[in-house]
């Protein structure tokens, strides 16, 4: 019955044959992205415009990988930058867009409608079950979701019957991405990482993936991590590299740190309406290629604007 190599078994075999020494894992984004290879399946942390690992994604765009697959619970315009430049040809997700009022993702439409890219569509919980099965070390998890729908008919799912109750369920296969890119609020040099606010699917994604790169708003001492172990959601032994990048999710939001820069997103959407797919390449040229690293992009945005987004986030925090 075993046909292809089992993703969960090969992912485990890789873990077993690897030692992740407890050493200083801090590197630059450029060095970290050496862990991302052309053809990889990349799990992109955060969801929609929250906690997107933008500094790490920009670095991939700078180094130019090809044949990438990007997966994410809900995808935002970051995926269009990869599709529009031809670096990615597959997106595995439940949704692509920006949000209420922003309209359809035109570059995604263009690429999929012209057969240049594949949109492998799961339900949102379907994506969650895939990462969670991968994180739990089981090849599948059962759910009621997606049953009877064309989502199930167009993905690798299978009926499964509960041996105790006879209930019909849908088996969702594990997803064990080649690499996960996760943006967190703070991490120590070993990769123990803490996330504030809504945790989304990042912890499951990290544990499911074969290689894990973190970017962090702040690197803190292990003593500080130990002061609040209940906030740690990714343990050091699941992490390969840590990159310190304040504003590392910008122009997307980071809970409590800065709000999404909707004007920046508006500009992108306006450009797409005007120049179509070319807008993705122009965006990458202007915001990525022009700069040596992410700090150049942030300098372009300007400290005043960054500070304003920070203040807006602080105003929105519970008190």
């Amino acid at each position, binding site marked *: 019955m075993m046909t292809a190599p089992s993703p969960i078994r090969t992912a485990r075999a890789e873990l077993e044959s690897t030692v992740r020494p407890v050493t200083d894992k801090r590197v630059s984004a450029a060095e970290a992205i050496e862990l991302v290879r052309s053809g990889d399946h990349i799990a992109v942390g955060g*969801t*929609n*415009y*929250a906690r997107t690992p933008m500094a790490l994604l920009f670095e991939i765009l700078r180094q130019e990988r090809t044949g990438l697959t990007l997966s994410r*619970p*809900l995808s935002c315009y970051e995926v269009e930058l990869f599709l529009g430049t031809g670096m990615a040809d597959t997106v595995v*997700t*439940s*949704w*692509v867009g920006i*949000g*209420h*009022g*922003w309209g*359809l*993702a035109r570059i995604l*439409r263009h690429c*999929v*409608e012209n*057969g240049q890219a*594949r*949109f492998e*569509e799961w*339900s*949102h*919980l*379907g994506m*969650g*079950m895939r*990462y*969670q099965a991968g994180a739990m070390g089981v090849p599948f998890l059962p759910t*009621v*979701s*997606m*049953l*009877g*729908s*064309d*989502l199930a008919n167009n993905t690798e799912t299978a*009926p499964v019957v509960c041996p105790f109750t006879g*209930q*019909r*369920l849908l088996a969702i296969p594990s997803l064990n991405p080649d690499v996960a890119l996760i943006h967190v609020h703070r991490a120590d040099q070993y990769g123990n990482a803490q996330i504030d*606010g*809504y*945790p*989304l*699917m990042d912890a*499951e994604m990290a544990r499911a993936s074969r290689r894990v790169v973190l970017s962090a708003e702040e690197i803190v001492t292990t003593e500080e991590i130990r002061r609040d172990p209940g906030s740690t959601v990714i343990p050091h032994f699941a992490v390969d590299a840590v990159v310190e990048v304040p504003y590392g999710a910008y122009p997307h*939001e980071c809970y*409590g740190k800065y*709000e*999404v820069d*909707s*004007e920046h997103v*508006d500009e992108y959407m306006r450009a797409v309406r005007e120049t179509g797919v070319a807008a993705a390449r122009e965006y990458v040229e202007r915001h990525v290629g022009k700069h040596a690293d992410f700090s150049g992009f942030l300098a372009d945005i300007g400290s005043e604007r960054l500070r304003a987004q920070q203040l807006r*986030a602080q105003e*929105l*925090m*519970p008190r």
Partner: protein
Amino acid sequence: MNAKDELMTVAASRLLRDDRVVFAGIGLPLVASTLAKRHRAPNLTIILEGGIIGTTPHPGMLPSSTNELRAAAGAAMFTGITDIFLLAQRGFFDYGFLGVAQIDPYGNINTSVIGEPTRPTVRLPGSGGANDIISLCNETLVVTTHEPRRFVERVDFVTSPGYLTGGAARVEAGLVYGGPSHVVTDLALLDFEPTSKRMRVRALQPDVTLDEVRTATGFDLLVHDELAQLPAPSATELAMLRELTGESADREPATQVSTVSR
């Protein structure tokens, strides 16, 4: 919001009873839920799929996404996205609340593709949590403008399953929970006939005739024996709604490039 959206939002908000839990999508569903909570159902708990339990958005600062600081306002609990849907699967959520691109006589919804799935004519945004919401919540409310291109005999793709081919088909497919209970439009309130599970006109919006509803629908509609009339939005409802969406009572249009004002 235009007048049609206001009509739908108010009608939808009235379907939500107090002390219940509603899993709301962003946009009109969240606005209707928040209106209900501020008006007649103060103990309504609003869930967003970003992992937010008990959101209470600030008037004039409605979120555009299920997971952003504005969506988190007033929340009593944050949890993972997967966990939110598992709470739905366990049965904690009384209402799901969805929009549509296409809907068919059995309440099957398409928000994925127009045309062929692998090479579509129009690639839409996709399910997001819609498939899960209609599969897992105790009942699901659907809200949409009433147009023939939306109310179609057969959806191109079943993103979010209603009653599939009708009758017992939904349950036989393993979808043993919930299903669409009402469709709220700018023309009518519709439900599903209990045996056939076909869509049925339950009530008309003010000044709308049954013929107008039929003309705007791309398939044959059943009609309830006791066809009712929906009351118009009250002045209070409209005032509260406009405060919520950040529009003044005389409804000046937004001037920004983005339809989202921040």
